């Protein structure tokens, strides 16, 4: 079979009927994925809300939560969402170096967030609130941990994309990929706001 490999980024618009802009499809598909992720987190939130007082005599959230640390995490994550926005702006201006620069800043902030979260977890375990202590701690670590896992996977993904941008520059394909990860990153921010409210603020109130 005669095949001619063509770079997705290079073929002209209107070239073939019924063929669709791949980025447009990807972004819409990603929105549906995010909806399903919202449902996934909703299950965890619902479980946490049901179980948050089921401490079985173990420590409660009020005794455990270290609010200054949580506030710091919040500011770091919100800032990273802002810098990921700056990365997209740089991409729209076709500035490859700025794009990679802002992605690096975003990734460093993300890593700092994860680091703080882990140290918070370690501290809680030292205070006698391990994963298996009670239904409350199981629900807490699973809900917050799932968000942390999402952030960590996002970091890996972002590093992969930085390498691709470095190699290939800003093309239609890489543009689509950056759009998608910035959606993802903002989404994680929104989830965190709910976490902050439902888990921490309502926990210490």
């Amino acid at each position, binding site marked *: *079979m*005669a*095949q*001619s*490999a*063509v*770079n*997705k980024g290079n*073929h002209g618009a209107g*070239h*073939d*009927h*019924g*063929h*669709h802009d791949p980025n*447009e*499809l*990807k972004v*819409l*598909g990603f929105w*549906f*994925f995010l*909806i*399903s*992720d919202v*449902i*996934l987190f909703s*299950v*965890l939130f*619902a*479980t946490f809300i*049901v*179980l948050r007082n*089921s*401490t*079985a005599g*173990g420590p409660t959230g009020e005794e455990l939560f270290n609010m200054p640390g949580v506030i710091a995490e919040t500011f770091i994550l919100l800032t990273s969402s802002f810098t990921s926005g700056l990365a997209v702006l740089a991409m729209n201006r076709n500035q490859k170096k700025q794009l990679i620069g802002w992605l690096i800043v975003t990734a460093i902030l993300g890593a700092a967030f994860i680091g703080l979260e882990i140290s918070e977890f370690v501290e809680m375990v030292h205070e006698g609130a391990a*994963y*298996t*202590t*009670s*239904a*409350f701690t*199981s*629900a807490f670590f*699973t809900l917050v941990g799932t968000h942390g896992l999402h952030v960590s996977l996002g970091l*890996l*993904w972002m590093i*992969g*994309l930085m*390498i*691709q941008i470095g190699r*290939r520059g800003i093309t239609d*394909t890489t543009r689509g*990929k950056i759009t998608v990860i910035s959606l993802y990153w903002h989404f994680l921010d929104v989830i965190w706001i709910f976490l902050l409210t439902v888990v921490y603020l309502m926990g210490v109130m």
Partner: protein
Amino acid sequence: MLDTIKDFASWFFVTGDPLIYGADVAITLSVIAIVGVLTYFKKWGWLWKNWLTTVDHKKIGIMYILASLLMLFRGGVDAIMMRTQIALPDIKFLEPEHYNQVFTTHGTIMILFMAMPLMFGLFNIIVPLQIGARDVAFPFLNALSFWLFFAGAMLFNMSFVIGGSPDAGWTSYPPLSGLMHNPGVGQNFYIWGIQISGIGSLATGINFMVTLIKMRAPGMTLMKMPMFSWSVFATCIIIILAFPILTMTLALLFLDRFGGAHFFTLDLGGNPMMYINLFWMWGHPEVYIVVLPAFGIFSEVVATFSRKRIFGYKSMVFAMLVISVLSFFTWLHHFFTMGSGADINVFFAITTMLIAIPTGVKIFNWLFTMYRGRIKFELPMMWTIAFIPCFVVGGMTGVLLAVAPADFQFHNSYFLIAHFHQVLIGGVVFGYFAGMYYWWPKMFGFKLNDYWGKWAFWFWNIGFYVCFMPQYALGLAGMTRRISEYSWDTGWGPLNLISTIGAFLMGLGFIFQVVQIATSIFKHQKDVTGDIWDARTLEWSTPSPAPEYNFAVIPHVHDVDDWWETKQRRAKGIPEAPQPQLEPIHMPKNSAIPIIMSLFWFVAGFGFVFGWWWFYVPGMIGVLLCMLARSFSYNTDYYIPVDEIKRTEAAIRGSV
């Protein structure tokens, strides 16, 4: 040393039951036969290139259907074994533990590894053709979805001979499915088999949602979309909203078992009722996930074989969307008896009954489509007509169950078993059979033999009523589900015997279908026109089977049944718009990543089942590496040049 190996083997492999040894032998022989045939005919390369790495939605659909028919066989054997055990009192055919495993796997396989893939198979083959698209929105993801389903199904089925099957029912309620009461690996097989294939299901839902929104042929507004595509649309809404609930629920159950968490345990604050709520928040919508596409199929079949436009197109669409919303507000009717309180029971009783309204609208629309139509009794139409009374009775008994006070009598009795088998076999199985017969010529280019098809039809139908009608009576007489033995003084013997005879009749129906497919492969009526039923929608405007690019020129759509209208215009001699020039067609390249990634998922799942980190760590790393490999691959598509399209078109249309 030798003793250690022996001990391990007797724990690792399921032993002690002649049935299982028989299965071991059968599995080994079939694997040897398959490998032998492939090697003898030198077909490995062909298999790899044309099937295992394909991203063509039509081939993926065929693989889904083959796999699901295999699972129908497995689930059917489970059913026959159960019915044999309870045909008469005091039969010693299956041990109680084995019986528990059989009803658990029967339910899980039939819903998740038979109905779901059969549905996805039909989605895959038909939706792009029906909306005038060249492929689905994400062909790579589509292949991945299939292989994830396959890996999950194989993992689940393996539990039969390795490690031991799950035995806590297909719903797997904790604490029965928790570590305290269920310490073996069976429950882990359940969790990971469903989990891995569930990721694929969610991806398919997203994929088809985007396909339907973005890839319709020019001119096909949403209100000109064929009914089957509409049913897929409604189904995808439910999949996207419901499947993550299942994923998370099973993940939490696994964390309980594997990580010592206390979500659903009896101690340290766990709440088993939380699981039951979450499970049915997915589980009830799941019923509509599998039945809505069947409704779509009936709509296509009824219109085609009555030779009339579907009656009440808009109300059909509206009814489906209403069902997809209401399906999320009924879950609690699965546990009316578990002390939710009268107010909550009433709310869910009413929402459950409400679903009967849009469903009734659809039934009447099908009847009105048939009214004064010139009905042709081909196999798809026969299954559709058989569906209507069956589903109506099943729906009515469902309304009886929805009456909360009455449910206290019916709950978990054979009345319930009869009800849901009546809607699931009468609705889903009959529907998918209708769809399979209807679209078989489109998939393979030939029609299935009518003679054996009619034998199968009558055995399935008569067998169905013989099997399930007695179960309503048994339920009212107090026989509860999941019991493996009863005594003569219960008086349940005669009706159970009749029911078992019915199950065997349905089994014969299945065998006739196998014979039907086998004989049709060798002797069949070829579909030379691509439109063997003189049908109405776009998939019949392509040759059978359709070329890999589906449409050489993307059609422009003007009407609801556009292909029918085109044929009418042609018959009247109205000149058509000139065909635009052929242009190179953009196609996705085959990829080995989906099958390899699913293999890593399988390895990881196997490791999680047994708690072996040297399996699940490499497995998960492999999965991540496959994702990276995909992200870094840019050479994923190609163009089919114009002369090649011309050659293909001449070859397939030459015989017209």
